[in-house]
């Protein structure tokens, strides 16, 4: 069995959510737990001779977490899962404290002081895998399950919805559900005294909620930067192959690739799985001065994206002679987190070695071909090193600690073993899903209004309203079809 040292991480996304879980795994987990956690009413638990962390069986205890100097940090629940019946097959302690970044970090700090080291992203899952706890397929299944657009993972997502955003979404949902109830009652019970749906009002309401959701969506994407993880900006002159590189790293066609310079007008952002780390790749509009206003906006956004990014890939076309612009762009990337990518190495080399070195100015410089895939391996490796190594961490907009360790609580608030395998990927995908849901719901609502405008009957319009409702339901984990039926009966006196 793989025996590592003792690792710890915050297992819940930082920032939002009511509860944060700090997970500790390894031979020292018991020591760590006993050092930081004091159960309440320990004396009345006298029948429990095995103590806080018995050798067999899972236990959960309520108590308090103290830091190294004996100061109280928070009240908490400590769950003890001794190996091999834990997720990693090692001894695992999980401390659930109040959410909120400050508290969670203080607890993690205390845990680290008590002898654990900070876990790398994916490390819990790696241990579980190494110890034969889960198969590779399992991890895949777990991820594909999150991806599956089904009613499920939403409950998870709902934990992110505790705050202001959550209130907004829930209000929107409530309004939609009421509208839906009115429609369904009138469609299913035409012989009862139920007023027909006022379509005009329905359209107005839909537009209003759509705006609300769009606003929430913008909020969400802003908030996401807090906990999402690493972003990598791809910069370079037009036509050096940024879009193609992004696609190559993603492994799928996403950004527009074209022969005419400047086609990638806006910032395209996608999450790639690079060596198991979810990394947000940001492809920027070709950076150059342009008269086209749309393109200029794109360039502006590219600069911002570059500023916010943790790592920059400065792409240079190796099949054309040296251009000062390449050097200028590369110079704009913050020193130690940039990789200079000399692209198109499948073509005859025009850019001399010296030129390349001038552009790189001492930074890591790699030759690749986005077209053939040559050199991409090394590029991925370099990104991984930057992100996981000290260099990457220090620049992280989340501060000195990684925000997400291994996802855990999102599944069902606790210690479902299977739920622990999500890691960073889990929180990442959920964040994206959250935005995606908001966007889709808003767009369905706009379809409702459009349908009404085009004179569509209520049964048609209801399809889009239903889609909006289901989409928000995915997010909050609330409201199913059955709820509408219930509401119809609660609100209307129907039937003979």
């Amino acid at each position: 069995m793989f025996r590592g040292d003792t690792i710890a991480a915050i297992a819940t996304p930082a920032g939002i959510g009511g509860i944060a879980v700090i997970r500790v795994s390894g031979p020292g987990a018991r020591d760590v737990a006993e050092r930081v956690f004091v159960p309440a009413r320990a004396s009345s638990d006298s029948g429990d001779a095995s103590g806080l962390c018995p050798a067999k069986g899972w236990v959960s205890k309520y108590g308090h977490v103290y830091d190294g100097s004996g100061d109280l940090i928070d009240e908490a629940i400590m769950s003890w899962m001794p190996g091999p019946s834990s997720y990693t097959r090692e001894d695992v302690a999980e401390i659930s404290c109040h959410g909120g970044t400050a508290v969670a970090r203080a607890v993690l700090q205390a845990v680290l002081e008590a002898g654990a080291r900070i876990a790398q992203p994916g490390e819990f899952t790696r241990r579980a895998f190494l110890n034969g706890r889960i198969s590779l397929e399992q991890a895949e299944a777990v991820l594909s399950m999150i991806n599956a657009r089904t009613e499920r993972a939403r409950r998870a997502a709902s934990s992110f919805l505790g705050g202001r955003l959550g209130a907004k979404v829930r209000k929107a949902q409530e309004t939609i559900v009421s509208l839906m109830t009115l429609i369904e009652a009138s469609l299913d019970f035409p012989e009862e005294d139920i007023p027909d749906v006022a379509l005009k009002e329905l359209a107005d309401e839909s537009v209003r909620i759509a705006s609300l959701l769009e606003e929430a969506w913008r909020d969400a994407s802003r908030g996401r930067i807090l906990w999402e993880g690493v972003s990598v900006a791809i910069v370079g002159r037009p036509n050096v192959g940024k879009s193609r590189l992004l696609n190559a790293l993603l492994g799928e066609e996403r950004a527009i690739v074209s022969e005419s310079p400047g086609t990638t007008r806006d910032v395209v952002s996608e999450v790639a799985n690079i060596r198991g780390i979810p990394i947000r790749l940001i492809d920027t509009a070709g950076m150059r001065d342009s008269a086209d206003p749309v393109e200029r906006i794109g360039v502006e956004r590219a600069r911002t994206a570059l500023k916010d990014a943790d790592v920059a890939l400065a792409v240079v076309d190796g099949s054309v002679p040296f251009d000062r612009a390449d050097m200028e762009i590369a110079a704009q990337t913050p020193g130690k987190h940039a990789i200079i990518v000399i692209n198109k190495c499948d073509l005859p080399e025009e850019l001399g070695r010296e030129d390349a070195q001038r552009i790189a100015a001492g930074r890591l410089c790699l030759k690749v071909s986005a077209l053939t895939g040559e050199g991409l391996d090394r590029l991925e490796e370099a990104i991984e090193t930057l992100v996981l190594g000290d260099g990457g961490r220090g620049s992280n907009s989340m501060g000195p600690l990684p925000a997400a360790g291994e996802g855990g609580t999102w599944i069902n608030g606790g210690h479902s073993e299977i739920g622990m395998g999500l890691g960073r990927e889990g929180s990442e995908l959920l964040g994206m899903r959250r935005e995606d849901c908001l966007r889709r719901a808003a767009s369905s609502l706009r379809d409702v209004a459009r349908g009404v405008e085009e004179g569509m009957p209520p049964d048609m319009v209801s399809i889009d309203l239903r889609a909006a409702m289901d989409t928000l339901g995915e997010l909050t984990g609330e409201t199913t079809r059955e709820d509408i039926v219930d509401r119809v009966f609660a609100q209307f006196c129907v039937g003979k």
Partner: protein
Amino acid sequence: MDYDVIVVGLGHAGCEAALACARLGCSTIGLTVSMDNIAQMSCNPSLGGPAKAHLIREIDALGGEMGIAADETFIQMRMLNTSKGPAVRAIRAQIDKAAYQTRMRRTLQCQPGLVVKEAMVHDLIVRDAKVVGVRTDVGDIMSEAVILATGTHLGGRVHMGEMSYESGPDKQPSAVKLGSSLRRHGFAMNRFKTGTPARIDGRTVDYSATKIQLGEDLPCGFSYLGRPGPREQIPCWQTWTNERTHKVILENLDRAPMYTGAITGTGPRYCPAIETKIVRFPDRPRHQVYVEPQGRQDQEMYLAGVSTSFPVDVQEKMIRTIRGLEDVHIIKYGYAIEYDCIDPTQLAPTLESLEIGGLYFAGQINGTSGYEEAAAQGLLAGINAAMRIMRREEQPLIIDRSEAYIGVLIDDLVSKGVDEPYRLMTARAEYRLLLRQDNADLRLTPVGRRVGLVGDERWRRFSAKREAIEAIRGGQEVSDALQEYADEAAEQVEIETKFAGYIAKQRRQVEEFRKLEKWLIPQGIDYSKLTRLSREARERLGAVRPLSVGQASRVSGISPADMMALTVHLKEMAHAERSGEAAKRNG
């Protein structure tokens, strides 16, 4: 063995089941407590409305009987929801109750391969987890399969005010022994309740104080076999309760079994007794009441909207406060009936018991309510029982939620279960726009043909309509030979075109849905060993035994984490199997 199939009960479920079995070549016997209650409409003498008309059309498209019988015997027909869109448009008809029963009884009696008998079934005969016959008051009858369609008779108990006695509907005997037999065979049961209003003498209604509701001359009926013959339609009459009615009700609540605790069964929310309506919706100043004729030859009128179990004196007093009914004479009083039904999650999507082979359940015994719901289940149970006997090598008929309301109904029953008498609504169908009453034939007639219930005439008409649709789609004139179908075909094409965007959306949703439906779960799986699942999930899944991951996700009490654990397990199993095979090959 005496017969291939025994159908117990000849209500709406039993009639369809018996006919389907016989028509598919099984020697079939239908048992009923009384020949007089065959296809009886124990409540309103009407069929159709949203979701229910859809069901009748689907039954018809598959080769069932209800639509044809309704078209022959209706006395009023209307189209509801005409302005609300094609998905919810629905035919509703008043039926001549007696004529309908006579018509159905004749159909049963003329059906080759089918006999009927008056007999009270007391017990099932089960051998090696397989049903082999039934015990009745007139002796044992042996068979390959049994379909139970006993309606509200199981453990029936009627309530009327202070009075309460063991009885089936309409003073028929309650099937007490069969109920305990099912319990003994291990079936979990629910106790539900339903009720019916008083029937009045039509001569004593002051029609001038009511609002008339006339029938319409529709271009179609329920059945796809052609437009029903012309006839004189009979009106219904609308009136309303008022404050005085409500006062009588509120003053007498202490005598309503609903509120005295005498009734413990769960009643349907969509069909509340008038006393429940007043209590639950105290702000409503009035509730509508329809006086519905029960038939051409009948002065007895049905009083829709005032179902009740008050004692007779309160019923008299209450009804007489209603405008137009001041001097009314009551022929039969309203009553509530409590009855046992099985928890339908004990059934496979074929409506066969998961525990006892060859035993099928259909109709109200499964916790549903409504004639159409019963008939639809009867048809499916009949088809599957017959296929089990005659065509073992073929897959049974399972219709999914994206194909028909029948699929929605059965999936809801066997996956989610019921906690009140279940009524179908269009709101329950995710893909409502695709499941229209105007295209049930296009959806299901090919299925019915394959099964063997769609005869040549129906098939000819269906093919002709399809041809006409093709012609219009291709921008051609509809040929003279197909003129009869021109309007219907034009309607299809118009809907397809006008709502193309919406239809495309729903089709995409269906594709998503099918992905999980197609992910099948091996049936031997032992859920108790899947320790990653919560205990509740293990129990629920073990009981329901879903066929697919999609069905599993709809089982009540299954959490997202459970689904995740289940899919992981399925992948592991598939993987183990693959590597096992590889090992075999190599070794």
